[in-house]
C-alpha cells in the first residue's frame, strides 16, 4: 500500500512531546556520569534550537550521531555493559528531537522515551527513580493523547491539563490491575538470560587491596548493606564483616587466590551460640558476600571457601538478601596443613629488606609467636598515628611505612603487619570487609556504609588457630569504631536532620524489602496465605487471570458510569417528588404531562392533594412557562419539591 506521508506536527504538540521526552530522560540523566549528562543536554539543546525552524541537514545529523556515540563509548572506556547501552539509548533519546517534524517522529519519540524509563531501572531500582518515572510515563501518555487529537485535527477540543487529568484517572483505574500483575503474574524462578555487566565498576571493596587505594571508598557514604539481627546481637566491637581473605602479596598489593574456593571450609569451634541475621546487600557486580566473623554455613547460591570467605555463584547484580549464622571462634583451623602454611608464609623476594631484618631480630629473641604479635602491636601503638592523609609509598612500601612515614590507615596497618608476621615466620593473611555499622533505631536494623570499609589481619597461632588481629585498633581504636561512636548519636548528631535521614534510610530499607525483594519465592508464600501451597506457574496463571478478570469488571463498571453534565436540579427534584408519590401507588405514567398527572392524583389524596397540585403548578410554570425565572425562586421550588413527604395514605 502506498503510505500517506505522516501529517506535520504543530508547534505546541512538538513542545509537549519534547517536555515528555525530557521528563522520561531525567531518571537516566541522573544515573549517568554528570559530565556526560551535561554534555548530552547541551548538545541536544543546541540541536533542537538549530532544527526548530526547519529540519537540520542530514549531514549535520549524521555527524552529531557519530559524535555522541563516540562520546558515550569513550565515557565507558569502550567497554560494553548495560550502563553503556543505557547511555547510548539516552544519547539517542536526547538526539531524536532534532528530527521531530511529523506525527510519526513524535510517536517514535514517545516510544523511545518509555524505553528510556526501563533502561533507567536497569541501572537503579531505587524509589527515587520510580518516583520520577511514574509522572514521566504519565507525561508520555498525555502526549500520546495530544497526538491522537492532533492526528484528527481536534487539538482545540481538550486542554493539556484535562489530558493530564484524564491520564491520571486512567492510571488510578489501572493501579489495581498493575498490582495484580505485579503480585500474581508468574515469575521466573531463574532468568532466561543473564543480566549484562556494567562497564564502569561501582565503588566498593575491590578484589585487590594496596595501601592508599581506599581513599575514595572511605569517604563514600552510600550503603553497602543492611543487616537485621534475629534475636540478640553481638557486642558492637566484634562487628567485623568478613569479606575477602587475601593471601597473595606482590610487593605492593594483596589479592585473593582462587584455591580456597575449591576446598572445604576449615574446621572451627564456635566460642558461643551463633547469631542469626539477614543481610540485604546492595548490588556490587562482584561475587563476594559479607558475613559476620565467622560464618557457619553458606547461604543458598553461595560457596563458603576454605578460609571462610563467601562467594556467590552469580555476581550480585541486583539487591540480594541472604540469611546467615555466625559465631566468634574459640578455635579456627587449629591444624594448619603444610601447603596452606607455606602459602600463608610466602613473601615476594627482594622487597622490604629492613622489615625482614626487624622480623628476624624479633624471632631470634623469642620463640613465642604470641609474644611477637604483642610486640608488633605495642610498636604500632607507641610510634604510629592514624590519618587518611597518608603520604604515598614507594617500591618497598612496608619498609617506608614502618620506618619512615609511620602514618596511615587500615590498609597500611594491615598490609605492613601481615608482612611483618610472615617475615617473622608466623602464618598471616589480610582480611577485608567492613567494620561496625550504624543502627537505625526507627527500623531497628544496621546500616553498613562503604565508608565503613576496613582491612585487618589474621595470624595463625599454635593451638588457637587463626586469630583476628586489628593493628589499626592498636593505633587508634576510636578510628576503627569511629562510626559506631558517631553513629550512636545518628549521622546528624541526633538532630532533626539526623532523624530525617534515619527515616529516609528506613523507607529505603522497606522499599528493598517489599518491592525489590519480591521474587518467585515470595510470590509462592503470598499464595500460601490463601491456602494454595506450593503453587506452580499454572496456579499462578489462574490466580492472575481471576484477579485481573474481576478487577477489569470492576474497573469497567467505573468506566461505564455516566459522566456527562449533570441533569437539571429542578428535574431531579421533580423526579424525586414523583418517586415519593409512586411509593403510595400514584405512579406517573411516562406519557402523562405533569399537570394532568397532578390533577389525576390530587383527588386521591385526602390531606395533601392541594399541596401536590400547587407544587406541580409551580413546577410546570418554572419549567415551561418561565425559563427566565430567577435563581432564588427556582431554588425555593427545588427545596419545596425535595421537602415533600407523603403524610396521608391514598384513598383507594
Amino acid at each position, binding site marked *: *500500500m502506498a503510505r500517506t506521508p505522516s501529517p506535520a506536527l504543530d508547534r505546541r504538540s512538538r513542545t509537549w512531546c519534547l517536555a515528555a521526552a525530557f521528563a522520561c530522560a531525567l531518571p537516566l540523566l541522573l544515573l549517568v556520569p554528570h559530565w556526560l549528562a551535561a554534555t548530552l543536554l547541551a548538545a541536544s539543546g543546541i540541536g533542537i534550537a538549530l532544527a526548530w525552524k526547519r529540519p537540520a541537514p542530514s549531514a549535520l545529523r549524521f555527524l552529531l550521531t557519530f559524535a555522541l556515540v563516540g562520546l558515550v563509548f569513550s565515557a565507558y572506556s569502550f567497554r560494553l555493559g548495560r550502563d553503556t547501552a543505557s547511555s547510548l539509548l539516552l544519547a539517542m533519546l536526547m538526539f531524536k528531537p532534532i528530527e521531530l517534524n511529523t506525527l510519526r517522529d513524535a510517536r517514535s519519540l514517545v516510544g523511545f522515551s518509555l524505553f528510556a524509563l526501563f533502561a533507567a531501572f536497569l541501572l537503579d531500582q531505587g524509589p527515587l527513580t520510580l518516583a520520577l518515572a511514574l509522572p514521566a510515563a504519565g507525561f508520555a501518555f498525555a502526549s500520546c493523547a495530544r497526538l491522537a487529537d492532533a492526528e484528527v485535527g*481536534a487539538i482545540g477540543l481538550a486542554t493539556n491539563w484535562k489530558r493530564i487529568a484524564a491520564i491520571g484517572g486512567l492510571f488510578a483505574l489501572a493501579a489495581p490491575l498493575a*498490582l495484580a500483575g505485579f503480585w500474581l503474574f508468574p515469575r521466573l524462578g531463574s532468568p532466561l538470560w543473564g543480566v549484562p555487566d556494567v562497564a564502569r565498576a561501582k565503588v566498593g571493596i575491590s578484589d585487590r587491596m594496596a595501601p592508599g587505594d581506599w581513599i575514595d571508598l572511605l569517604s563514600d557514604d552510600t550503603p553497602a548493606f543492611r543487616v537485621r539481627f534475629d534475636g540478640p546481637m553481638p557486642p558492637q566491637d566484634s562487628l567485623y564483616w568478613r569479606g575477602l581473605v587475601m593471601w597473595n602479596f606482590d610487593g605492593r598489593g594483596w589479592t585473593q587466590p582462587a584455591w580456597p574456593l575449591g576446598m572445604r571450609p576449615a574446621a572451627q569451634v564456635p566460642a558461643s551460640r551463633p547469631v542469626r541475621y539477614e543481610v540485604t546487600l546492595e548490588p556490587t557486580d562482584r561475587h563476594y558476600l559479607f558475613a559476620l566473623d565467622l560464618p557457619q554455613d553458606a547461604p543458598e547460591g553461595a560457596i563458603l571457601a576454605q578460609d571462610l570467605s563467601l562467594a556467590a555463584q552469580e555476581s550480585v547484580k541486583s539487591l540480594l538478601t541472604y540469611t546467615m549464622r555466625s559465631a566468634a571462634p574459640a578455635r579456627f583451623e587449629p591444624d594448619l596443613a603444610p601447603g596452606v602454611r607455606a602459602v600463608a608464609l610466602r613473601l615476594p623476594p627482594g622487597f622490604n629488606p629492613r622489615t625482614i631484618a626487624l622480623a628476624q631480630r624479633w624471632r631470634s629473641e623469642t620463640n613465642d609467636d604470641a609474644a611477637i604479635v604483642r610486640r608488633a602491636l605495642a610498636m604500632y601503638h607507641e610510634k604510629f598515628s592514624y590519618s587518611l592523609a597518608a603520604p604515598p609509598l614507594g617500591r618497598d612500601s612496608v619498609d617506608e611505612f614502618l620506618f619512615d612515614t609511620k602514618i596511615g590507615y587500615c590498609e597500611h596497618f594491615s598490609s605492613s603487619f601481615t608482612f611483618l608476621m610472615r617475615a617473622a615466620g608466623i602464618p598471616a593473611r589480610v582480611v577485608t570487609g567492613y567494620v561496625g555499622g550504624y543502627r537505625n533505631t526507627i527500623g531497628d536494623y544496621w546500616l553498613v556504609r562503604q565508608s565503613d570499609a576496613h582491612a585487618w589481619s589474621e595470624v595463625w597461632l599454635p593451638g588457637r588457630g587463626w586469630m583476628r588481629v586489628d593493628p589499626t585498633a592498636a593505633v587508634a581504636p576510636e578510628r576503627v569504631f569511629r562510626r559506631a561512636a558517631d553513629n550512636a548519636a545518628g549521622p546528624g548528631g541526633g538532630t532533626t536532620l539526623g532523624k530525617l535521614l534515619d527515616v529516609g534510610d528506613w523507607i529505603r530499607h522497606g522499599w528493598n524489602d517489599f518491592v525489590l525483594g519480591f521474587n518467585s519465592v515470595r510470590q509462592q508464600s503470598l499464595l500460601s496465605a490463601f491456602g494454595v501451597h506450593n503453587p506452580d506457574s499454572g496456579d499462578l496463571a489462574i490466580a492472575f487471570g481471576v484477579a485481573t478478570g474481576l478487577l477489569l469488571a470492576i474497573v469497567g463498571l467505573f468506566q461505564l458510569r455516566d459522566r456527562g453534565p449533570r441533569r437539571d436540579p429542578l428535574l431531579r427534584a421533580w423526579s424525586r417528588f414523583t418517586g415519593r408519590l409512586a411509593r403510595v401507588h400514584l405512579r406517573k405514567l411516562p406519557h402523562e404531562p405533569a399537570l394532568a398527572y397532578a390533577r389525576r392524583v390530587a383527588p386521591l389524596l385526602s390531606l395533601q392533594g392541594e399541596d401536590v397540585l400547587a407544587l406541580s403548578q409551580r413546577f410546570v410554570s418554572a419549567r415551561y412557562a418561565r425559563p427566565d425565572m430567577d435563581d432564588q425562586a427556582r431554588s425555593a421550588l427545588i427545596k419545596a419539591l425535595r421537602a415533600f413527604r407523603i403524610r396521608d395514605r391514598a384513598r383507594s
Partner: protein
Amino acid sequence: MISAAQGFAATWRRRALGFTRPRRVEALPVALDRRRIYVLPTRFGLFIAALLGTMLVGALNYNNNPALLLGFLLAATAQLSLHATHLALSGIRLRDARAVPVYAGDDSILELRFDALRARPRPGLVLACGAARTVFSLPGADDVQVELSLATTRRGWLLPGRLTLSTTQPLGLARAWSYFWPDLRLLVYPALEIHAPPLPTHEGTGDRMRVRAQGEEPHHLRDYRVGDPPRQVAWKASARTGKLLVREYEAHSDRDIRLDWNTLASLPYEARISRLARWVVEADRANARYALVLPGQLLGPAQGHAHRHACLQALALLPHG
C-alpha cells in the same frame, strides 16, 4: 505486483465490509451498541504493545520489580484506554440525517444530528463518508449537529452509503469504528449551464419581443450574456459600472413560458439538461409561470418553489445518456 497486492487488499476489505454490521440500510434513529463497534489497535498501538511486551519480558527476566511495576501499570493503562475507546462510541445515536439538494459540482451539505444514550464526554469523533470527513465531539447527552460536505459530480440520486464514525481517543493506541447506514438518498440537481441564452419567452420573433418590451416594466439589471438582443442592453448603467448590463423584464404576461426539450435538439444530451435547468432557475427567479416539456412528461405550467423542485428533480433523474 503492487497493484495486485492493492487489488487483493481491496477485495478483502470489501469482503470484510460484507461481514460488518449493519448489513443493510436501517431506519433512523440508530444507536451504537457493542455488537457493531469494532476496535483494532492502530499502528502506533502495535508499536507500544511490542515495546511494553519487550520491557515486561526483560523486567521479568531480571526480576526488576520497579520496571515490572511500571510496565504493568502502563500495560493496564493501555488496556483500559481500549475500553475507553470503545466506550467513546458506545451509546452514540444518529437521530436524523438530511441534506438540501444542490447542483452537481457543488458540495452537498449532509446535516446529521447525533446525541448519546449515556452522558459521557466524547471528544475527537471522526465522521467519514468516502473522502469527506469531519471532526466533532459530544460533550454530554445533548444533541449535536454535524455537517458533512460531500462532493457531487453528477446529477441524480447521491447514495452516501455507509457513514463511518471512528475515534482513536484517548491515547491513539486503538481505533474504534462503527458504521451507520441510514436510508439516505440525496438529490443532486443537474449542473446549471453557465452562459446560457436568455429564457425563450416566446418561440416568436423580434416583433413580439418589442411589443412585450414596451408593455412591461424593467424589473432589474443582470450581466450580459451572449445572444442578448442589443436593444436590451442598459447602456447608461453599463457605462456607470464598467460592464455590460442587460434589462430584464418581469413577466406579467398571461402567456406561460414553455421550456421544451425538443427545441434544443441541436445540443448534446447533457447540455440540453443543463440549459433547461438553468432556464428553470431563471424562470423561477423571474417569478414566471412555466412549463417543462421532457420526453414523455410534462410539468406545469405552474410556478413557485415546489414546481421548481419538481422540474429540477425531473431533469436530475433523466436517464444518464
